[in-house]
C-alpha cells in the first residue's frame, strides 16, 4: 500500500512555563495517496502541531512518521520539496508584490530562473490573481491573501498539499472559490490534506477523514465506509413520500423485523431500520397499489459523523 501520510505512535509534548502539554498523543495515521483527507478536530486538538511535525517544522517527542515515503525527522527537506503547505496563520512580505513574493518562494524551491516567471504566472492564473500580480500584498483582502497562500503552495508542483484551516476568515464566496480550487487539484490527482474545525466548509470535499481530540486519534477511515458503519450502528433513516392509503403502508412497514420505528411527519413517512429496507418498502407499496414519489436513505453528514465520535470521546474522557 502506498501511503501519502503514515505515523506510528507520533507524540509531541510541549513544555512551557512549567506546564507539560501533550499536543499529539501516540497518533497512528495511514492516508493513501490520491485522497482528499480531512483532519478534523476542535480548536486545540493538535491538528497544527501534527502538520508542523509532518513537514519537519517541529520535531516529535517520540514516535515516527513518513510523508510520501520520507522520514519526517531525517528527510524533512525532501518532504518540503514535494509538499505544498499553507500554514495557519501565515503572512507574506507586505512591501512586495504578489509576483515578487512568489518569485522568492520559487527561488527557495530552486525553480530555475528561466522558468520562474512562467511558473509564477501560471499559479497566479490558477488562483485568479494574475490581474493583480503587480499589486503590493499590503493592499490584499483576506481572501486574496488566502489565494496567494494556495499559489505559493502550488509553485513547487507538489504531490501532496496540506492546508491548515484554509477557510478560516474567508467570506462565503472565498470559501466556495477555495472548494472549487481543491476540487480541481483533486482531479489532477494530487493528495490533499485539509485540517479544519469548520466541517461544513470543506467536509463535502473529503473522501477520507481522521478525527482527533486532545491529540488522540478518535477515528479514521474512508468517509463512505464510516457513514455505512454509522448507519449500521445507529440505524438507517429512510424517507418515504407516497400517495393513497398511507396509514396501511405505515402499518405494513412496521411489520418488517428490521424496522424499529415508523412515523409520519406531514406528507412524509420516516422509517428507522437496522438495514436498508427500501426494496421491501417498494414491494409493499406496489402490493397496496400506492405510488411512491420519494424513497431515499437519509445519510449522516460529516458533521453527524464528527459529532458522534467527538461526543463519544468527550463522554469517555469525563467518565
Amino acid at each position, binding site marked *: 500500500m502506498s501511503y501519502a501520510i503514515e505515523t506510528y505512535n507520533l507524540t509531541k509534548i510541549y513544555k512551557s512555563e512549567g506546564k507539560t502539554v501533550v499536543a499529539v498523543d501516540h497518533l497512528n495515521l495511514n492516508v493513501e495517496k490520491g485522497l482528499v483527507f480531512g483532519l478534523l478536530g476542535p480548536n486545540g486538538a493538535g491538528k497544527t502541531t501534527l502538520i*508542523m511535525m509532518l513537514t519537519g517544522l517541529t520535531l516529535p517527542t517520540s514516535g515516527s512518521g513518513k510523508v510520501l515515503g520520507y522520514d519526517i525527522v531525517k528527510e524533512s527537506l525532501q518532504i518540503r520539496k514535494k509538499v505544498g503547505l499553507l500554514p495557519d*496563520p*501565515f*503572512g*507574506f512580505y507586505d*512591501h512586495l508584490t504578489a509576483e515578487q513574493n512568489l518569485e*522568492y518562494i520559487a527561488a527557495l524551491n530552486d525553480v530555475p530562473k528561466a522558468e520562474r516567471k512562467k511558473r509564477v504566472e501560471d499559479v497566479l492564473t490558477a488562483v485568479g490573481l494574475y490581474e493583480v500580480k503587480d499589486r503590493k500584498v499590503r493592499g490584499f483582502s483576506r481572501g486574496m491573501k488566502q489565494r496567494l497562500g494556495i499559489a505559493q503552495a502550488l509553485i513547487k508542483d507538489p504531490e501532496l498539499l496540506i492546508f491548515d484551516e484554509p477557510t478560516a476568515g474567508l467570506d462565503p464566496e472565498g470559501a466556495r472559490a477555495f472548494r472549487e480550487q481543491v476540487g480541481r487539484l483533486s482531479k489532477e490527482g494530487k493528495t490533499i490534506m485539509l485540517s479544519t474545525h469548520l466541517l461544513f466548509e470543506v467536509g463535502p470535499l473529503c473522501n477520507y477523514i481522521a478525527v482527533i481530540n486532545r491529540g488522540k486519534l478518535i477515528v479514521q477511515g474512508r468517509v463512505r465506509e464510516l457513514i455505512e458503519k454509522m448507519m449500521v450502528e445507529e440505524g438507517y433513516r429512510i424517507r418515504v413520500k407516497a400517495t393513497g392509503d398511507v396509514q396501511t403502508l405505515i402499518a405494513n412497514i412496521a411489520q418488517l423485523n428490521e424496522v424499529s420505528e415508523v412515523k409520519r411527519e406531514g406528507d412524509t413517512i420516516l422509517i428507522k431500520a437496522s438495514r436498508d429496507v427500501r426494496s421491501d418498502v417498494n414491494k409493499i407499496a406496489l402490493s397496496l397499489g400506492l405510488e411512491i414519489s420519494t424513497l431515499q436513505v437519509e445519510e449522516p453528514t460529516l458533521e453527524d459523523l464528527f459529532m458522534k465520535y467527538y461526543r463519544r470521546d468527550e463522554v469517555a474522557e469525563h467518565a
Partner: protein
Amino acid sequence: MPSMFTVALKEFSDVVKGRRFIVLVIVFGLLLTVAIASVYLTVMQSINIPGIAMPRGFLGRAAYTLVTMMSYFAPIIGLALGFDAMSGEKEKGTLKIVLAQPVYRDTVINGKFLAALLATSLAILVASIANIGGAAFVLGVTPTGEEVARLVLFIAFSILFAMTYYSIAVLLSTISKRTTQSMIIGVVLWAIFTFVIPIIASLVAFTARPIRIGQNIQNMTREEMQRLMEEMRSRIAITEAINSFTPNYHFSRIAQYILNIYTGIAIGSRTSAEVRSISIMEGLTSAWPNILVLVLITAIAFIASYMIFMRQEIR
C-alpha cells in the same frame, strides 16, 4: 537546494530599499555635515589665535569627528537592521511560509547575517566616504596615502562594530516574542553601553581614587606632579576596566589606535610625540585585544541566536 545567497539577496534588497535604512543614512549624512561644519569653524577660529597649534594633517583635524559620529551611527544601524530580523518574520507569519520551503533553518539566519553585513558595509562606506570627502573639501586638507590606509581600516572596524550590535539585536529578536520587546531591550542596552556604564565608571573611579590638588599645578614639585599623574592613571585604569564591559569602549580604543588619535595617558606611558608617530602595524598590534573582544561578542551573540533559532518551536 537554495543557498543562503537567495535569502541574502532578498533581504539585502529589502533593507536597502526600505525606508528605515534610507532615513538612517540621510540623518547620519546630515549630522556629519553639521559636524564637519563645526570642525571647519573651530579650525578657522583657531588659525587666528596666536600660540594655538593646529592639529597636523587630515586625520588630526577630522578623525575625532569621524570617530564620535561613527560610535553613534554604527550601533544604531546594527540595532535598526537586527531588532526585527527574526521576531518580525514570526509576527508577520512569513517565517512559516519560508520554512515550509525546502530550506534549512541555518540558510535563513546565515542569509540574514550576510545581507546585514552587506547593507551595513554599504551604509558605513557611503557615510564615511561622504564624511571624508566633505571634510577634505571643507578643511582643504587631503588625506595622505597612509591616512587613506588608516581610514580604510577604520571603516572595516566600524563595520565590525555595527555587526556586533546587529548580532546582539538578532539575539534579542530571536528570544523575544514581540518585535517591540526586542527593540526596547536593544535601545536600553545601547543606552546602558553608551551612557550609563561610562557614567558609572567615572563615578566609581572618582570615588575610589579621589584626586586632591592642593595648589596650582604650575607650583607643584616634580614628586607631587608624578604622584598626581599616578593617581590619574589609576583613576583611568578603573574607568577603563569598567568600560571594557561595553563594545563601545573597544571600538573607541581600536579607532584611537588605528587613526592615531592622541589619547595621552590612556595610551600608556608614551609621550604625545611618540603616540602620534605609531605606525599602522603598531596600532593594529595595540588594538588586537579590542578587535578580538568585538569579534568574540559578535560571534557569541550570533552563535547563540543560531542555536536558539535552530531549536525553536515553530507554532
